[in-house]
């Protein structure tokens, strides 16, 4: 069965091959939205950004997320930097929330599930995933198949040119999309955002040296560069 709900500003799909989707999963997403949304005036993140709340006084989960965002800034040479977007951690929170939802499903004993949060996916068991074509939105550019995967894509083709190089504030050039696969969706999403922001000249080389994560970069000239173990079907 599957359930779809509109939470955190996007449709979230949870599918399981046997049994039911526990209510706890969507309760969790609503809790994340209430805590981290930049659109909710009273969320902890909104209060932090207005300076009404000190980081040290924030809840454990908020501190945990911000600490991981700091690490990711280092891991990506500043190409994933929430300070460049006034302390908005949304680029990491979505993937992290899905990782935690996966842990809820694991604890509930669900052995085969998939979660799709606005195009970023995490699975348990073997699932087949199509990666949307960056130019022809109704088409699939690549099929990914694997066990226990996180699959995150960053590109300019949905919300316009919303990813920028934090160093120059320019939209990246020469690149259409970056898809990262690996064990952890929060990390994969941040890596995809960072690689996309690097642009077509830097991104492929950078993805080639990631540890534990694979990548497929689609360049503006139509070349598709994948790391050797990218899980193409």
């Amino acid at each position: 069965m599957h359930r779809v709900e509109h939470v955190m500003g996007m449709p979230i799909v949870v599918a399981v091959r046997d049994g039911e989707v526990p209510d706890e999963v969507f309760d969790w997403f609503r809790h994340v939205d209430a805590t981290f949304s930049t659109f909710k005036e009273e969320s902890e993140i909104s209060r932090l950004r207005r300076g009404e709340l000190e980081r040290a006084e924030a809840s454990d989960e908020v501190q945990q997320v911000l600490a991981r965002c700091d690490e990711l800034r280092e891991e990506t040479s500043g190409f994933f930097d929430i300070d460049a977007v006034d302390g908005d951690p949304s680029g990491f929170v979505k993937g992290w929330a899905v990782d935690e939802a996966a842990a809820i499903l694991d604890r509930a004993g669900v052995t085969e599930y998939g979660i799709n949060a606005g195009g970023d996916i995490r699975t348990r068991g073997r699932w087949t995933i199509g990666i949307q074509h960056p130019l022809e939105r109704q088409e699939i550019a690549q099929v990914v198949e694997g066990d226990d995967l996180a699959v995150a894509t960053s590109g300019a083709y949905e919300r316009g040119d919303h990813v920028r190089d934090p160093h120059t504030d320019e939209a990246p050039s020469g690149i259409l999309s970056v898809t990262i696969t690996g064990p952890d969706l929060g990390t994969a999403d941040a890596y995809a955002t960072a690689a996309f922001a690097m642009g077509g000249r830097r991104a492929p080389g950078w993805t080639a040296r990631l540890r534990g994560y694979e990548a497929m970069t689609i360049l503006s000239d139509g070349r598709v560069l994948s790391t050797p173990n990218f899980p193409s079907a």
Partner: protein
Amino acid sequence: MRKRLIGAVAGLATLVLPTVNAVAATAKTIVTTKRVTGPQAVADRWGYVEVILVVKKTTRIVGTHKKVTRKITNVLVPIYPNHTDRSVFINQQAVPLLTNEVLTMTQFNPNIEFVGGATATSGAFAQSLQAAILQAKKI
């Protein structure tokens, strides 16, 4: 660790192995190219380094005489600390390790259960592939 890698590079670069093999009388040259991956090495506190050497091996056989020469034709550094501008250049050295294909649309694949892509807004999702596939499959 750094010393060990440099040692390995020097060793391969100068490796010339003349061996004698009886039999054929005609001249023959065989050229092969191989990749040799070094161990991942810790570069102080900066992270990990990994070096791949592309080695061209030329075997020249003249009569009973066989001569093997190995030449390093490229050095790739796929894993390198990313703390300096120079590392951006070095990152580009890793590009030859990537598989290079041409962007196409895949044939309709009935096995697809999820569709991934850059963040889908609800408006886009309403007419998206994911919605269509969910309807079609009734997962």
